[in-house]
């Protein structure tokens, strides 16, 4: 069995180079060693991978996210500086950075401008949550102990009838061994 295995192993392992192998090596030596046969597939593979990566990158670019754009429009007026954003957002940021800080009297006008810009971009005049005014505190119902309903404690108000004396009960006397006999 061992010899049989050895024979087959030797036959499998002892492959010879095909005819013309030295000539092919010389040809590649003469051509400067170029054309190993894997250069073109490697380039094609790299190109495909780059295209796929670019496609994925473009599909998740912030331009395609409406909510991000809307938040950026609001922040361009009164929010903190953005580190990332769209070209429009970047322009607004640059304008904000160049201009002096808005005074309280200027802010309503700026908010109005932002709202107009937002309507032009998205066709909606509904302001984002952070721009909506809070309702007045006076409009809220008061919450306190006086608003709790009073619960009648009826059990304490029930009248208790007069106590009656219990009449004495006559218990007949027993003989000394009467209990044991029963």
């Amino acid at each position, binding site marked *: *069995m*061992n010899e*049989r*295995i*050895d024979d*087959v*192993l*030797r*036959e*499998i*392992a*002892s*492959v*010879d*180079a*095909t005819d013309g*192998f*030295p000539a*092919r*090596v*010389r040809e*590649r*030596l*003469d051509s400067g*060693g170029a054309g*190993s*046969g*894997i250069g073109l*597939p*490697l380039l094609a*593979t790299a190109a495909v991978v780059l295209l796929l990566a670019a496609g994925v990158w473009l599909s998740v670019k912030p331009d395609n996210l409406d909510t991000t754009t809307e938040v950026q429009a609001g922040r361009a007026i009164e929010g903190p500086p953005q580190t990332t954003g769209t070209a429009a957002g970047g322009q607004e940021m640059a304008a904000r950075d160049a201009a002096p800080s808005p005074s309280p009297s200027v802010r309503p006008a700026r908010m109005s401008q932002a709202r107009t810009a937002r309507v032009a971009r998205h066709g909606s005049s509904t302001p984002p949550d952070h721009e909506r005014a809070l309702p007045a505190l006076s409009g809220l119902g008061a919450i306190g102990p006086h608003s709790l309903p009073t619960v009648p404690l009826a059990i304490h108000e029930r009248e208790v009838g007069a106590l009656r004396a219990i009449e004495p009960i006559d218990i007949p006397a027993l003989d000394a061994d009467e209990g044991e006999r029963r």
Partner: protein
Amino acid sequence: MTDAELVERAQAGDTAAFGVIVDRYQHVVVRAAMAVVGRRDEAEDVAQDAFLRAYRALPGFRGDASLKTWLLTITWRQALSHRRSLVVWLRRFGSSADEFPEVAARSAPHDTQLADAEFRRAVSSVIRTLPRKYREALMLAAAGDHTFEEMSQALGVPAGTLKWRVSEARRQLKQRLARLGWDR
């Protein structure tokens, strides 16, 4: 002409001398590549690349090891690099060719040929299932071109480790063949 003379001439720019080296060691280099990549066409590609690398590295060859061992070192590294490359992985993904294909049966009576072909097919398929390090050592040793000392020097693995890998590969091969009914 000896290897040393051929190397000296090739180092001086004599490409014909290097051609003689290619003629002399083509089979040895292809077999070493075959032990790693397992496919004949890829083994020839690796062997060509290995000879080109050897030609470029020839000025640095000092003769510390024999030319054959030096070529084995270059071929082995080239084959490992080839097997890890993305292009090869993609090429194999779309190919149905097997590693270590069965060899053709020798001339023999018809029934013996059939049994031999069956056995060769079983051995080829079991070789493919062996752990990579065992399989590589087994196939390189089975080619019979190198001593364990030469293999040790070229691969950077102790000779004792290589001997153990070959022995373990043979034991597993025999065991798996027995499971397939080839125990006699």
